[in-house]
């Protein structure tokens, strides 16, 4: 656990009420949302401190209110120690009551939603777990929707998220470890894995990397992702993220590790291999034959999204002899009078599309739709009619864009989008020859890449027969059981 480094971190809680409140005032300043409520319990003065909106001290206040008049009668003691112990042991009808001796701990507990009960004369304070954040309810995951399968998605609350996973794997071997990270934001980060299934080397490696993270703040899981990924300069993602608890559950059962971050519904998974980015949770909720076909289609879409514009540029500017004669006639007719070279033409359309796409995300939902219609239909058709762009190029760019959306993970789609432009530039200079070289280099890079020390292309390179049940294809479960054994565990 990360050690706190703020000023009063090592100071002890003073026995004097005024000194205590002064300390808190000094550390937290006079925020209007911090409530100091003076109390008297069994003749002892004290104070209850909590942050409005973050903590729900209703139960604490009620229990003290209900019980305190009776206290002196029942025990007869006005000794501060007795009352303190009584509070700690049974007077508070709230689950979690802890004791803190260090001021730093008191303050951090206060900031995370605990209610502090302090009695004068004691050199420690009670921390009552009254966290009650206003939260979004569990809703349908919007980023990876399915036709068939659970609809739940993660929320911004770490505890809700871990509970969503726990509900799916009711197994005592499910482990959860929590860290607080980010010197300023002090965000809770939890890692979850299945004892016995997880690769201990990967776990060790992850913990090592998490330990070395030095960040001021962590507001989203990408902060962690960027710090723990294996290679900074790779277009490919080596950390998987999802907002679907069922995907996380499946990943944990496969022996992978999930990283939850407070405040974001996106949970990370490591190690993340190339083929994981082509799997959709629905592959497992539909019949195997259909799932295999669809998964195969996604690999084709990957190729289309990556290569179509560059392939078009290559064959129309360098290798016209490869085009069937009739197609060539038609293409030539369309290109007649187009003032730009094919590469510029493709670049114009691709950039236009990227602009439309970016604009579509920013715009309010109602306008976003009309913008995309205006963009695709009007600009596309107008450009063709004005003779700026050939009709074939519009088709090429559209199929590329649509194929890109068919990839089930957004971050693999981003890689493809970036690489597409690189490939276009290379083929515009060197034709199919350049494209082949670029693809060879890409393959080398992919085979060289690792995720948490696991080769990125595992299942294909190194080839593992036992993984083939669920790599390019998703075999139906009886076949999996018959030929690959019943265990769901994959090597990755």
């Amino acid at each position: 656990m990360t050690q706190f480094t703020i000023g009063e971190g090592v100071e002890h809680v003073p026995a004097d009420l005024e000194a205590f409140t002064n300390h808190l005032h000094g550390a937290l300043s006079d925020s209007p949302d911090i409530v100091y409520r003076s109390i008297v319990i069994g003749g002892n003065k004290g104070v209850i401190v909590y942050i409005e909106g973050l903590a729900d001290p209703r139960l604490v206040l009620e229990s003290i209110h209900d019980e305190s008049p009776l206290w002196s009668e029942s025990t007869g003691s006005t000794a501060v120690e007795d009352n303190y112990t009584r509070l700690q042991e049974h007077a508070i009808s709230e689950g979690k009551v802890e004791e803190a001796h260090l001021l730093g701990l008191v303050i951090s507990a206060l900031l995370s939603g605990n209610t502090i009960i302090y009695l004068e004369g004691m050199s420690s304070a009670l921390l009552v777990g009254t966290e009650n954040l206003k939260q979004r309810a569990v809703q349908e995951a919007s980023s990876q929707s399915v036709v068939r399968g659970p609809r739940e998605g993660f929320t911004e609350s770490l505890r809700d998220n871990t509970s969503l996973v726990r509900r799916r794997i009711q197994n005592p071997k499910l482990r959860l470890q929590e860290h607080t990270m980010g010197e300023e934001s002090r965000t809770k980060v939890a890692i979850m894995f299945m004892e016995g299934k997880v690769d201990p080397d990967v776990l060790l490696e992850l913990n090592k990397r998490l330990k070395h993270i030095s960040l001021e703040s962590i507001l989203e899981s990408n902060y962690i992702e960027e710090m723990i990924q294996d290679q900074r300069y790779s277009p490919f993602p080596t950390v998987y993220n999802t907002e679907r608890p069922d995907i996380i559950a499946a990943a944990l059962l496969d022996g992978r590790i999930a990283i939850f971050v407070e405040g974001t519904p996106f949970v990370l998974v490591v190690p993340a291999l190339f083929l994981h980015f082509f799997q959709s949770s629905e592959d497992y909720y539909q019949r195997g034959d259909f799932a295999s076909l669809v998964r195969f289609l996604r690999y084709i879409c990957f190729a289309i999204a990556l290569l179509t514009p560059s392939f078009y540029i290559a064959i129309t500017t360098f290798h016209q002899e490869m085009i069937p004669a009739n197609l060539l006639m038609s293409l030539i007719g369309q290109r007649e009078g187009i003032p730009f070279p094919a590469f510029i033409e493709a670049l114009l359309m691709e950039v236009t599309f990227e602009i439309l796409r970016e604009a579509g995300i920013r715009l309010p939902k109602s306008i976003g739709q009309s913008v995309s219609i205006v963009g695709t239909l009007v600009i596309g058709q107008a450009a063709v009619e004005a003779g700026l762009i050939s009709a074939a190029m519009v088709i090429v760019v559209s199929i590329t864009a649509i194929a890109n959306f068919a990839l089930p993970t957004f971050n693999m789609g981003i890689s493809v989008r970036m690489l597409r432009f690189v490939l276009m530039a290379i083929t515009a200079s060197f034709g199919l020859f350049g494209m082949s070289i670029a693809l060879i280099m890409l393959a080398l890079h992919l085979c060289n890449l690792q995720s948490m020390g696991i080769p990125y292309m595992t299942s294909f390179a190194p080839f593992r027969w036992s993984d083939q049940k669920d790599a390019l294809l998703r075999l139906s479960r009886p076949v999996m059981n018959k030929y690959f054994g019943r265990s769901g565990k994959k090597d990755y």
Partner: protein
Amino acid sequence: MFIFRKAIWLLLILLLILPGCWSRKELNELAVVAALGVDTHKSGFLVTAQVINSSEIGKQRSSVGATPVVTYQAVGITIPDALQRVLSQAPRQLYLSHLRVLVLGEALARSGISDVLDYVSRSPDLRTDFFMLVAQHSKARDVLNVLTSFEPIPANSLFSSILVSHKNWAATGMVTLQQYITELERAGSNPILSGVRVIGSQAVGYSSSNLKKINPDAQLQHAGIAVFKKDKLVGWLEESKSKTVNYILNEVSTTIGYVPCPGSENEVVGIEIFNSDTKMDVKLDQRGIPQFTAYIHVEANLNAVQCAIDLSKSKNIDYIQNQLKEKLEVVIGNNIRDVQTKYGADIFGFGEVLHREYPKVWAKYRNNWDTHFKTMSVQIKAFVAVRHIGSIIQPVRREIHQR
């Protein structure tokens, strides 16, 4: 190390920019040559290039009604020399890779086409899968100057009509450069080419007004098969002989014929041959002279019955079968003998069969096979099966007579 790495990156980026996309050619910088015609000329070759007018092709809305192709002509000592001279008229670089047909003038074909073959097989721009045609009794230039219906590009029209007629008519030769050269180089065979001619008035064929008539003034027609001896044209085969060539070369897939009806020589039964398979065989007789036999297996349907035979009787069907068998054997046998005596060119590939079966015997003949070929005996054995008689059984003639 760091600087080294930076330098590598810089070089790579420069590599993208500096070569300037060499050998890049945009589609609208090309003049795609769809057909090339070569004729003799007193100073070398007269080359005609049929170039696609790309602003007219591929657009739904045709602009000014210009012709879909333009032909350019130039004379040169060599073909590339002439082609380069075309650039004095054409605004774009000629692009030969999509050549569909190569038309050779008859005069050129008679004087030998080896120089043309050298160019077309030497040039890396040209594919080897275009069809070669001979312009019958005319110049290649005249054939390339006719506009065609259906296919706006005449070269495409020629290309697809060869495919269609070869498949369904079997009296045209579908010969690509590749096949021509293979036949030429093999000692035991001589090449053939398909012929094409212009029918009607050539004078109007070159204008798009030719296409505005329901019955165009000028049209292109396939005209049998041209027989070559080595690289020189020696003569033409008419329809029946052309079919014979295709039967023996096992190139017939569908064709139409007829046989006489039982009991009457004037009335006929129409036959559609839908499957034909030929195997050639050679045996040596007692004196060691090769005896060739061609086994032709034919499956046929009746498609027109112009007499009153009773088709429900199997003996009548057998009769038709026999008639067809005899006709095939006689006609094909005669045709082969005609070619043997008239041209002495082994366009059927009998020499090749001998070469494979009896390489040692072949060695005796190979040096002057064409002379020996004239004396070879060729037997035809046909096997005919009539499969279907169509949607009705009895001939309509018979039905009417019985009533």
